[in-house]
């Protein structure tokens, strides 16, 4: 938060100096906010990989998040394949090669930086809100939703790519809406069948060796999910920061993602992962269904296979929705398991509302920034971000979920209000 404090102190001075300084202030806000988003992305999604290992006791909660953080850190350095064109699938801020559109980069990229900043703030606020409710919603869709909303507000409907040109999977429909509906179902079906057969094979076998075997299977599958997560998600933030730097004019497109950007993004997502989004881990590990070791292995196996197959086939999807779908499917596939459909229902509502809600927040932030204008606008929305995030963090402390109570018996979602 120190970066924010410095920027806030700088605020009043910045309004009276040149546009270079104004753009620099906004650029610093974008970098700080992008890293904060990356951090929330980390803790929001820790559960995808480790929920089932924690539920079955294959890993102690702290060990599980440390493993996931390490794999995320490694994964973050593996790929920047889509980083430079991260916004291209849904909005028209960049040309096909990743160059920011020329009309958006006057005044050192002021227009583009404000759109990106507003979008990031919308995404963080929605991520924090769903985390407070303990709901595993997609961080990637929150980011894209925020940026779509801010673009809609800033450039109008023509700035958004609703459908592609028909030659490849593209646009809001192809990259978000269809995969958002289908990918959790696909993962769920695979996990359901996998679990059903695995449970048949594991039934009535000698406990000790069986448990040890499935424990290792589970840890390996969870590691793979974490690695894929770091690879997929960290580069989105790297792309946003690099886009800001290019728009400002401090790096060229040909330079690619600077190493320091890779490093801070990798550290932010790994740090967030290590913090552990215990509220969401609890929902995934205890809330949806009680998880047994063979079932957990089948669920994690299905998740990692679907995530990897999708990146291999070029089909975009949300790690979170796939992992949640797998756990749900594994519950349906295990004979005698009791799936809490009310929890699943809440989760699906969060999935359905993520894109429009993050979009609305992103648009709102852009309008507020535009209302104040100059450097004051971005600083006002930064203050709103800090206030909103701080408020939700405080609310979470009323009913704290951490590594001590994450595995307690499920008696309902974590309440967000103080019980009188």
């Amino acid at each position, binding site marked *: 938060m120190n970066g924010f404090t410095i920027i806030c102190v700088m605020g009043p001075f910045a309004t009276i100096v040149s546009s270079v300084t104004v753009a620099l202030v906004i650029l610093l806000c974008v970098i700080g906010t992008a890293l904060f988003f990356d951090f929330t992305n980390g803790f929001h999604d820790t559960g995808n990989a480790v929920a089932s290992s924690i539920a079955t006791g294959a890993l102690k909660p702290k060990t599980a998040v440390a493993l996931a953080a390490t794999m995320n850190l490694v994964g973050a350095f*593996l790929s920047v*394949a889509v980083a430079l064109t991260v916004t291209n699938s849904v909005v028209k801020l960049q040309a096909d090669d990743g160059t920011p559109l020329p009309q958006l980069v006057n005044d050192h990229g002021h227009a583009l930086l404000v759109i990106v900043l507003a979008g990031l703030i919308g995404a963080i606020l929605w991520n924090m809100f769903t985390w407070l409710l303990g709901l595993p919603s997609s961080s990637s869709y929150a980011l894209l939703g925020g940026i779509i909303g801010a673009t809609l507000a800033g450039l109008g409907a023509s700035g958004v790519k609703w459908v*592609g040109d028909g030659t490849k999977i593209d646009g809001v*429909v192809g990259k978000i809406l269809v995969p958002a509906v289908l990918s959790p179902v*696909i993962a769920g079906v*695979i996990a359901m069948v996998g679990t059903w057969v695995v449970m048949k*094979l594991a039934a009535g076998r000698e406990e000790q060796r069986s448990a040890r075997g499935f424990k290792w299977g589970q840890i390996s599958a969870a590691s793979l999910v974490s690695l894929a997560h770091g690879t997929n998600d960290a580069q989105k933030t790297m792309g946003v920061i690099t886009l800001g730097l290019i728009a400002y004019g401090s790096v060229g497109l040909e330079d690619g993602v600077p190493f320091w950007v890779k490093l801070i993004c990798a550290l932010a997502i790994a740090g967030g992962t290590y913090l552990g989004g215990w509220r969401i881990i609890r929902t995934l590990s205890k809330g949806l269904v009680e998880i047994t070791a063979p079932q957990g292995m089948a669920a994690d196996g299905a998740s990692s296979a*679907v995530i990897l197959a999708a*990146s291999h086939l070029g089909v975009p999807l949300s790690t979170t929705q796939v992992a949640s779908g797998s756990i749900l499917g594994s519950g349906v596939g295990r004979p005698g398991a009791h799936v809490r459909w009310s929890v699943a229902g809440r989760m699906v509502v969060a999935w359905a509302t993520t894109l429009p809600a993050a979009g609305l927040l992103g648009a709102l932030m852009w309008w507020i920034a535009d209302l104040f204008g100059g450097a004051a606008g971005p600083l006002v929305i930064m203050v709103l971000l800090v206030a909103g995030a701080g408020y939700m963090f405080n609310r979470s402390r009323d009913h704290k979920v951490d590594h001590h109570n994450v595995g307690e018996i499920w008696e309902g979602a974590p309440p967000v209000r103080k019980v009188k």
Partner: protein
Amino acid sequence: MDTVRLSLQGAWDLLYNGFFVGAGLPIIFALGVRFLAGPAVADGPAPTPSIANKVLAWVCFAAVAFAVMVGIMIIVGAGLGKVVSFEHIFPVLVPKP
């Protein structure tokens, strides 16, 4: 509508490919565990698995480990702009066609 058609095609490919790997590997692994862990015994120490069972179990685990290795190669390869080729049976990274 082309976007929807392409997306549905992608979803089908994902289900088809994901099915063999995502359900198949955990099943092979579970089979390996089954070879190691004999039928449950009421009391007393669990019997040690026979050599044959041990070999079969490790064949299963090795198959899964091999597939996981290919999975990691796919991730690493994607970052380097390469794809995994099975042309020479053993997987190698080749430039994207």
